[in-house]
């Protein structure tokens, strides 16, 4: 294949561009450019203009091609949004299972097409509400789940055989998933029918989000158990949502988000292959989760580069043959860390721009942050505005009329190429260290992210980067927003509920089930069946996670900064 532009055209462009640049230099010599240096939010320098010269080596069929065709730069499905819009999936979770169930019903009624569950901190860390470590945390940043009864209440009356459910859960992902499967089966819905996603990505927890329980190696072992179990038993489930979102929120650059996320994906793929699974049996159920941050074009380029990189890695490195294994399907959430507590209504605009970038980057599903998310869990009103933002983009703006609308933009194609190249450099470095597990043990990604976060904060403090309403256009005026509060009484009620469930279950059966979980952990048996049995016997989340902690040990934060 050859380049789109021939040599003669190139020379003409080069000549014209040189002249144009000289002209600009003349203009700017009397009145300088608006900024000394133009750069993205990730501090990537951006040129005055991009021309065919910047994408000269690009080969249309090999590097871009058509949507639904390798290397999928322009989209994973051939039809993209001409066929079906992205899934509008708003992350929700607050207070008790009953409270969150009410929010789910509201979102479904307002036109949301998939569920997404946020859990509270004790649940995320594998503790019951009555743990001394959980004091003051119940229901604060998500829903509290102690046992199967809570899971039953959470999805009560929701059509889980028709709607897919995403659950943002990591260290105890296997247990929460077991509860979901058990809940479905109690309602007479087969495990082969249910669809959804568990985040289940521990590598990015050690790197960025920092909810952890057991050390990296056994954590990855349990994840591989879920991959194996899902492949054989729950075919419509996405077993890992390989996540860059939290890496970015922790302060990484766009390229670091891209590189570390894909390196995590490589690690999970290798583990599953080492377990003896065929790559084409499990890889189609891996999904991804990215951040959509402030810098519009850089984000679009990131999504496009991610698709192309994953396709190349799966095909060339892991020799996957099924095109579905080459697909990088991803969920996007707008950047929580970009929202400001000051002048909070500005957050609606930020979120709209970020959502637009995600759509123009070809996301499969999207969560748009609410304007008050920087202050507390969203109110119903704020969550509805965020959902309406997606609906306006989808049905009013016209951006979903054509596929990959920025494909062929000299700027976006050039950024896509650059980001792919830089991300592969980082991935090579991680490979040289011996893979992501070793890199994490050496604190490599953690330190890189900390450096980027500090660099950005310094730029904001020195006003090199603008944050509207904070370091520029700030006002002293207080702008009130309604805020949702979680009743402190909830903790007591939740503990009472858990105690009631514990007093009504068969204690002998719970003990036996927990022993079987322990035996699976110690040995090599897949943990999932014993987990499903244990949650059906109403063993609590913490009782099960305590078995994990006893067998595998606990991970402590190395506390680097």
């Amino acid at each position, binding site marked *: 294949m050859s380049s789109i532009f021939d040599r003669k055209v190139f020379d003409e462009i080069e000549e014209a561009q040189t002249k144009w640049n000289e002209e600009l230099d003349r203009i700017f010599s009397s009145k300088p450019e608006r900024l000394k240096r133009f750069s993205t939010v990730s501090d990537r320098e951006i040129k005055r203009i991009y021309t065919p010269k910047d994408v000269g080596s690009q080969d249309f069929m090999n590097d871009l091609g058509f949507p639904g065709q390798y290397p999928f730069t322009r989209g994973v499905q051939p039809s993209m949004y001409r066929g079906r819009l992205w899934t509008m999936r708003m992350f929700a979770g607050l207070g008790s299972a009953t409270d969150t169930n009410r929010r789910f019903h509201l979102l479904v009624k307002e036109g949301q097409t998939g569920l997404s569950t946020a859990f509270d*901190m*004790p649940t*995320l*860390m594998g*503790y019951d509400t009555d743990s*001394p*470590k*959980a*004091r*003051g*945390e119940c229901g*604060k*940043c998500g829903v509290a789940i102690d046992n199967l009864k809570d899971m039953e209440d959470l999805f009560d009356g929701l059509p889980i055989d028709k709607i897919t459910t995403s659950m943002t859960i990591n260290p105890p992902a296997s247990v929460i998933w077991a509860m979901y499967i058990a809940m479905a089966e109690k309602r007479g819905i087969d495990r082969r029918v249910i669809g959804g996603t568990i985040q289940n990505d521990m590598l990015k*927890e050690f790197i960025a*989000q*920092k*909810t952890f329980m057991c050390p990296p190696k056994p954590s990855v072992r349990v994840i591989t158990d879920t991959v194996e179990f899902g492949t054989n038993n729950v075919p419509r489930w996405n077993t890992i949502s390989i996540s860059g979102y939290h890496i970015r*929120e*922790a*302060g990484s650059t766009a390229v670091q988000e891209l590189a570390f996320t894909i390196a995590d994906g490589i690690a999970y793929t290798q583990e599953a292959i080492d377990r003896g699974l065929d790559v084409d049996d499990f890889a189609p159920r891996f999904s991804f989760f990215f951040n959509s941050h402030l810098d519009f074009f850089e984000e679009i380029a990131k999504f496009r580069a991610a698709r192309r990189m994953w396709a190349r890695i799966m095909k060339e490195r892991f020799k996957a043959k099924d095109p579905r294994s080459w697909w990088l399907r991803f969920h996007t959430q707008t950047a929580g*860390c970009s929202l*400001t*507590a*000051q002048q909070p209504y500005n957050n609606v605009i930020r979120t709209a721009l970020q959502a637009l970038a995600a759509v123009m980057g070809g996301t499969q599903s999207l969560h748009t942050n609410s304007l008050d998310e*920087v*202050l*507390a869990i969203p109110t119903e009103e704020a969550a509805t505005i965020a959902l309406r933002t997606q609906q306006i983009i989808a049905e009013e703006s016209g951006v979903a009329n054509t596929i990959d609308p920025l494909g062929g933009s000299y700027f976006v194609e050039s950024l896509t190429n650059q980001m792919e190249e830089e991300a592969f450099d980082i991935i090579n470095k991680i490979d040289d260290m011996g893979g992501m597990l070793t890199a994490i043990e050496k604190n490599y990604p953690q330190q890189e992210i*900390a450096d980027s*976060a*500090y660099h950005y*904060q*310094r730029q*904001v*403090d020195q006003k090199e980067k603008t*944050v509207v309403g*904070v*370091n520029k256009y700030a006002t002293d005026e207080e702008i009130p927003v309604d*805020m949702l509060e*979680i009743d*402190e009484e909830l903790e007591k009620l939740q503990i009472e509920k858990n105690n009631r469930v514990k007093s009504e279950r068969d204690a002998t059966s719970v003990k036996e089930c927990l022993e079987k979980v322990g035996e699976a952990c110690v040995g090599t048996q897949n943990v999932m069946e014993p987990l499903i049995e244990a949650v059906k016997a109403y063993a609590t989340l913490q009782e099960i996670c305590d078995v994990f902690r006893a067998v595998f040990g606990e991970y*402590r*934060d*190395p*506390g*680097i*900064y």
Partner: protein
Amino acid sequence: MGKKRHIRVMVAKPGLDGHDRGARIIARAYRDAGFEVVYSGLHQTPEEIVEAAIQEDVDMIGLSSLAGAHNYLFPRTIELLREKGADDIDVCGGGIIPDEDILKLKEEGIKEIFTPGTSLDDIVSWVKANVKTR
């Protein structure tokens, strides 16, 4: 001898909240400002934080909380310092803390609360002006 020692600060993450971007940036800014910094790492109980602060002989504890449990964790830290007779250690806080909670927390003995958008220089200046080496 006789030379005044540097301000010694503990940056601490109480509770289960894993959002440590802010805490780690603050720790770095303190270090760059010439303070001696102890960072607790994540997932510490108030008991663990107070014990470490006394052992490390710090002048101030900076608590960071972004997941809503500050109304329990911050006052509990103050209470434990009092119990141990170490309430000459100043405590300030930072993170996602609603305005009405700030008033209550200050009444409980938290010296200052820094919310999102505060510049690092402002925080460092506040510490220099208000925290005395013990």
